[in-house]
Structures are given as structure tokens and as C-alpha cells.
């Protein structure tokens, strides 16, 4: 069988040689028509003439998208992959959550805040060639809201209730005028018209594909759908007839690469040229890499530890203040998050309007913590349970951060025992009414949806929003805060609303509901050749104004 003298060591060397001799894999480096033009500055709004057209952006996503029907989306990966396919009725301005015209050119709000009249853009066509008009818009909204709509069963609409819950009726006034009537005045509603459930899908395509619209998306956006191979890639190509003007790049491909380390290796090896979620340990190295560009933007995110305020000792304001002093939040941000988050002093992220940091702060001070605990009647501290998820959307490094907090609390005599849970189980056990709450303390985070302060302060801290009504998990209750938040959400004047929210932020800081730790920074890394990319606070990637320059 084997010739005498064949050495196993020799065979191993041979195998190694064969492997090394394998021809190099074709790395899909973005092809570009540019002819070696000079580097342009990031501020330029368009590529130098004759360069920067064409090329492919390959995005390494964290996980597989679950749907490309914008109205069915409930996760970031789907949102990012589907974003370029659609236009919403209104649009969030670049790098901001203020709204500007989208498929609606202009809008009017009645004085009582109940009727929104939208003038729609004429001459816009869906990718399947059908016309966008008021009937199409009405179809899209009613498909989500009305359980008797003939196409309601073509999907599940996780955000319908949130986005359209206050809508009473949707009417077509004429071909290009849509009237939306609300049940009660609701100031943040205008922003909802720019959210992903307000992205308009072709009614003809919904009729054609039924439930399979989820993987055969048709919109009006800057990119058209080409293919979706589950687990492999979602391919979009440019829409040359886009009403705002055709994008510069030919294709955008989204690849799910689950492992953070593998995604990074893919970027460095050139298998992708754009990635999300950089592991904190690698951030500094990537920033130093001359071939890569790291883009950061503070997101609408807050990370905190909540208490069960329905029972002692957490019903005591002094105890919650003491805990806030006891935790070295700056150390967590510096040593664990390493620049992937910024210190938070307020439940509201700084990117959301009305944010103020002119409020009471809780800088690290174990001495103050001990004093306050003694005043509150707990000179020797107490023991409690502390729930931590193993991982989870927006949870950053839940276990490491939880352990750091546990150690800080131990130093002032509070002995908490960490219990970890899988994310699905965790959500099930923390979003519960007071009578079912088994926790003392738990970690949570929130990513804003519509850019309105109401989306953070009211939903998370109003006394009317205890689960199951809302997401005031931990059962914070402050009557003065409640009154301000209620007034602010029904007031239309933004200056007045800003005043009310700032007042509420001050009161909340004096009576802290949580240990407020950080706001996560959105970070993406891309090949240096990708120009003019801007992150948006709501999370999706806008590639319509991006070009590639070799």
C-alpha cells in the first residue's frame, strides 16, 4: 500500500505545500471606473467628474435579515438590508431626526393636531413600473392597521401598533393628496411618517406575491432588489430612474457574518468592504489602519440598570441615589467599552432634541453612597438579586458590565447576586407587571425609533407605562414627571415641548429611576475607497450618495 520509506512527515510537508500553492481566491475588490483621480475630501457632495461611478459595496451584517418588507421589519439587520429599496412618506434628514419631504412633498397639520394632510410627489414609479399615488399610500397604511384589509394577512407588522396606533382613519382626497386623521393629538406622529412602517411597498407586488412579498420586495427607492440567498447575500442594484437621481454605486450586497472576529477578518482580507459592530478591543487598531476608514456617530441608545421600585429598598429615592454614586460609570465606559460608548447622565440620548446635561449628576463617590445609604436606614447595605442577559440587541457587554457594577456595589455594602439568562427568556421575565416581577435589579437598554423625546421618556418612565401597558420596567412613578410628559406629548409647539421635557429631565435626575451608564456609539468601518458615507442616528445605511474611488 505504501512504498517503503514514504515518511509521514514528508506527507505532511506535501499537504502544506499543496495548501500554500492553492491559487489566490478572487477577492471581490470593488471595481471602479475611476481613473486614479486625486483623493477628494470627505466634505465634497459629489464625486469629481468622470470618477466614482460604479463599483460594489459589500456590507458585513451581524446576522441574517429576516424580511425585506419594510413594514414587517423589527430588527436592525433587516432594516439595513431593506432600507435602500424604499422611500417613506417623509424622510429623516441626513445625520438628524428632523424630517424633510419624502414621497410626500409637503404636509399640513390642523390646529387641533388631529388631521395630517400630505401632498404626494407626482411621477414616482415603483420598481415594477406601477405608479405611486394616494391610493398606494392608503393601501400601505391600511394593510398594516386594518385587520379586515384583504392584504392584512400578507405579513406580521410588529411596529404597526407603535407607529399607527393613534390613527383613526386614512382617506384619499385626490390622486396625490392623502388625509390621515388621528384619534387624539399626538405630537411625535410626524416623525412616524419617516419611520420604516411608513416606507411604501408596491401594492401590485403585494397582490402578486402575497406573503412572499417578504422576499420579493418592490419599492420606489434608490436601489432595486436583485436576489436574496438566505445565509449568503442580499443583492441590490442601483435604480437608474430614481426620482432623486441615480446612486453612484452599481450594487450593494449585504452578507451576514455572525462572528465579530470573522467579520473583521473579512474586512481586512477584502471579502467585504464595509462592516458593522467593531469589537471594542480592535477599535484602536482599525482606526490606525491607513486602508480603512472608521465612521462614528452617537446613536439613540441608552444602557441602564433598573430596580424593582415596587418594593423596598428600591422604592427609596436615597437608595437609588446612593447606588448611582456607588457605580463608577466612567470606568465602565473607559475600560470595558473602550470608546464604543459615551458616559450617560440622562435617560435621553444627547442626539435627541431637548436633551440637557444641566441636571444633577452622580459622579463616582463611594463615600456619598455610604452616607446616603446610612441616611436611608441601610448603614450596612443589603443584598439583592441582579439579572443579566448573556447577550441581546443593544446590550453591549452585559455580563462584563454587570460584573463591574456588582463589584462597585459590593464596595459600599450592597451584595448583589448575578443571575444570567438567554435573551429570549430574559425579555419574557423582565417585561412583566409588578405582581409578577421576581427581580431586584436588571440590565436593560433602549434604542429610539422616531427621534422624539417621547419615545424615550414617556414610554420608559411614565407611571402610565408600567408593563403590560408600556416599557416602564422597574415601575418608576413620579407624579410631577408624569404630568409634564403627558402635557408634552399632546402639545404641538416644539419650543414649548422642549421646555417641558427639560423640566422633566431635571426632576428625573433628582429622583433617579436607574443607574444610567452609557449611550452606545454607532461605529462602522469601511475601505478607504468608500467616500461620502454618513451614519444616521436611526441605524440604517444610506448609500445613495456614496461613491467609490480607487
Amino acid at each position, binding site marked *: 500500500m505504501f512504498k517503503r520509506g514514504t515518511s*509521514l512527515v514528508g506527507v505532511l510537508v506535501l499537504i502544506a505545500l499543496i495548501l500554500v500553492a492553492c491559487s489566490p481566491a478572487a477577492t471581490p475588490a470593488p471595481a471602479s471606473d475611476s481613473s486614479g483621480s486625486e483623493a477628494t475630501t470627505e466634505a465634497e457632495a459629489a464625486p469629481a467628474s468622470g470618477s466614482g461611478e460604479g463599483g460594489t459595496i459589500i456590507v458585513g451584517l451581524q446576522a*441574517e435579515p429576516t424580511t425585506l418588507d419594510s413594514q414587517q421589519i423589527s430588527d436592525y439587520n433587516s432594516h439595513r438590508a431593506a432600507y435602500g429599496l424604499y422611500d417613506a412618506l417623509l424622510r429623516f434628514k441626513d445625520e438628524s431626526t428632523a424630517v424633510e419631504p419624502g414621497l410626500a412633498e409637503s404636509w399640513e397639520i390642523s390646529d387641533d393636531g388631529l388631521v395630517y394632510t400630505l401632498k404626494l410627489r407626482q411621477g414616482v414609479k415603483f420598481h415594477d413600473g406601477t405608479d405611486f399615488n394616494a391610493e398606494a399610500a392608503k393601501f400601505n397604511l391600511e394593510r398594516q392597521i386594518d385587520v379586515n384589509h384583504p392584504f392584512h394577512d400578507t405579513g406580521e407588522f*410588529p411596529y404597526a*401598533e407603535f407607529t399607527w396606533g393613534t390613527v383613526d382613519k386614512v382617506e384619499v382626497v385626490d390622486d396625490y393628496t392623502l388625509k390621515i386623521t388621528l384619534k387624539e393629538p399626538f405630537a411625535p406622529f410626524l416623525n412616524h411618517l419617516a419611520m420604516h412602517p411608513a416606507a411604501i411597498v408596491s401594492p401590485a407586488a403585494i397582490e402578486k406575491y402575497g406573503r412572499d412579498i417578504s422576499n420579493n420586495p418592490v419599492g420606489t427607492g434608490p436601489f432595486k432588489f436583485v436576489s436574496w440567498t438566505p*445565509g449568503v447575500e442580499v443583492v441590490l442594484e442601483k435604480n437608474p430612474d430614481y426620482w432623486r437621481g441615480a446612486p453612484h454605486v452599481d450594487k450593494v450586497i449585504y452578507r451576514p457574518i455572525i462572528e465579530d472576529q470573522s467579520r473583521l*477578518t473579512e474586512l481586512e*482580507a477584502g471579502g467585504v468592504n464595509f462592516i458593522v459592530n467593531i469589537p471594542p478591543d480592535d477599535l484602536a487598531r482599525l482606526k490606525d489602519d491607513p486602508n480603512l476608514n472608521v465612521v462614528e456617530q452617537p446613536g439613540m441608545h441608552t444602557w441602564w440598570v433598573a430596580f424593582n421600585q415596587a418594593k423596598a429598598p428600591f422604592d427609596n429615592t436615597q437608595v437609588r441615589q446612593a447606588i448611582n454614586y456607588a457605580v463608577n460609570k466612567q470606568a465602565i465606559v473607559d475600560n470595558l467599552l473602550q470608546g464604543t460608548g459615551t458616559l450617560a447622565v440622562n435617560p435621553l440620548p444627547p442626539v435627541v432634541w431637548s436633551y440637557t446635561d444641566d441636571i444633577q449628576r452622580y459622579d463616582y463617590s463611594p463615600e456619598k453612597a455610604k452616607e446616603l445609604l446610612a441616611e436611608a436606614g441601610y448603614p450596612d447595605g443589603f443584598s439583592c438579586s441582579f439579572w443579566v442577559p448573556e447577550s441581546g440587541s443593544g446590550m453591549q457587554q452585559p455580563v462584563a458590565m454587570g460584573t463591574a457594577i456588582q463589584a462597585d456595589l459590593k464596595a459600599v455594602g450592597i451584595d448583589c447576586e448575578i443571575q444570567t439568562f438567554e*435573551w429570549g427568556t430574559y*425579555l419574557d421575565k423582565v417585561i412583566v407587571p409588578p405582581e409578577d416581577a421576581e427581580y431586584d435589579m436588571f440590565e436593560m437598554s433602549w434604542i429610539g425609533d422616531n427621534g422624539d423625546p417621547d419615545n424615550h421618556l414617556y414610554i420608559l418612565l411614565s407611571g402610565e407605562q408600567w408593563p403590560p401597558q408600556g416599557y416602564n420596567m422597574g415601575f418608576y412613578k413620579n407624579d410631577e414627571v408624569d404630568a409634564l410628559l403627558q402635557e408634552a406629548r399632546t402639545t404641538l409647539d416644539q419650543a414649548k415641548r422642549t421646555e417641558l421635557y427639560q423640566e422633566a429631565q431635571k426632576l428625573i435626575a433628582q429622583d433617579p429611576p436607574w443607574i444610567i451608564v452609557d449611550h452606545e456609539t454607532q461605529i462602522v468601518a469601511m475601505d478607504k475607497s468608500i467616500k461620502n458615507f454618513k451614519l444616521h442616528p436611526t441605524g440604517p445605511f444610506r448609500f445613495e450618495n456614496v461613491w467609490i474611488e480607487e
Partner: protein
Amino acid sequence: MTRYVTQRVISLIPVLIGVTLLVFLVMQLAPGDPAQIMLGPKATESSLAQLRHELGLDQPIYVQYGRWLTRVVQGDWGRSIQLKREVLPFILERFRNSAYLMVLAVLLACSAGIPAGIISAIRQYSLDDRVAMILVLVGFSIPIFWLGIMLQIIFGLKLGILPVSGMQSPGQTGMLDLLKHLILPAVALATGATAIIARMTRSSMLEVVRQDYIRTARAKGLTERTTTGRHALKNALIPVITIVGLQVGYLLGGDILIEIVFSYPGIGLAMVNGILARDFPLVQGAILLVASSYVLINLAVDITYAYIDPRIHYEQ
């Protein structure tokens, strides 16, 4: 023989029903609500209730199980809650992808492990034997995900000769492209199995070459090559085949880790995502498929004995 195979196939049915029942109960008893996970923390109570109703989750468990099993038998494996598409075509495609990986890994493991074991055995205590046995120890002890990441960094990044992850390069569908993507995950997956197969082959060979009939063969003046190749190897391989069959089960476990590290769109990754999303129809379907294939592979192993070992007869 036919009768034996038929009996074995029929006996698979209760095994598979047992598997589905177990999976169904485990998934249902695990805390976490698919509707809640799907709609996220921002869902309202009424939309949750409606979704649970649409998904049939508001029915008693036995009703859900009965309905599911009836439909599975009829070929309707349901719709994935998370991916919003038909389960059966989806998991079949994912299973095919994993099969590529597993077949290549098994081939690599056998073609490296069996020769290594033979050489070690016939040259016991030589340098080759010692090097091989040290490599076996290393191969068996290396954590598979770490090995995967190292292979990515060495061959994908530093040498740049093989793709880092995925199954195909964007826009490519060719066999060569697929093969390039398969090499690193298959090597990582095969390492542990190679080690076990090499060890098993070695000890089995060592036992056989000490048998009287081998001494007789040598005494008859047969060449060393005929003696080891024809007489010893055939008998030594029987336990090795059992091990290879069992390895397929272990490979399925390692396959899940490897598919995560390499973002390889196989059945393992589909199951992990499905479990995290409490996607009952997907997970149940995938486990049923995987369990059936495992049972069938074991059946195939049993049948292979008959051809290799003349002492085994299945006729009664």
C-alpha cells in the same frame, strides 16, 4: 438482507416520533415567547395576542403537536416564524450546504486519519509514529472554533489564498468557488475526527498484526504489502467504520460551531438562529431532518459491516 433493512427502516419511525416529541416539549417548556421575541420589546399586548393567535400558539401543546405532526406527514412542514418562508425547502437547502461540508470533512478525516493510523501501527515507536501520535493528541484537544479563527487569519488574511467566510463569493455560483470556501471550515471540522480515526486505526491495526493468521501469511512468504494491505487492513477497518459512523454525530455538533465561525449557511446555523428566535416550526423541522439523517447513516454503517466482515450475516 432486504428484510433486515426493511425492519430497520420501520423501526426508525418510533425513534423519529420520540425525537420530535422531545424537541417539541423542550422548545415549549423553554421560557421565552416567539411572539415577544419577534415583535421585540416594543410590542403591545394586543399585537402580541393577535400574533400568538395567528401562529396557533394560543392552542394547548398537544393540539399544536398533533397539528404539526399531521402536516409534516403530508409534506407541509409549516412556515418559519422568523424568516417568513416555507420551512421544508429552506431547511433542505441548508441541509444540502451542511452535507457538502460534512462529506468533505469525513473524506479529509478518513484520507488523513486512516493512512496515519496504518503508518503509525506498522512502524510502531518510530519517529513517524511519535510525530503522528503527538499530532493526534493536539488535533483532538484543539477547540474547534479557535482552530477555525486561526485558519481564517492564516489562510484568509495573512496568506490571502482562501476566502475567510461564507459559502460563495458575491455573484459566483461555480463549484471551484464553492470548494475554495469549503476548505477551511472542512479542515477545521475534520481535525478532531482525523485524530480519533488515526488512533482507532492504529490500535486496531496493532491488534490485528499480532494475530496468528498474519504470522501465517508472512510465513507463506507473502510480501509485507499484501500482508498488511489485504489481510490486516480489511479486518482492522471494521471498528474504524463504526467510529467513522459515530463521528458523523460528533461532526454535526462541531458543524454548528464551525458554521457560526465561518458564517456558513448550513443547517446548524439555521438551528441556532431558530432556537434564539423560538422559531418552533424551523427548529422542529431541522431537528427532524438531522435526526433522520443520523439514524440513516447509522443504518448504512451497519449494512457496510456485512460487506466488510464475512462473519456478519443479516439473514435469519
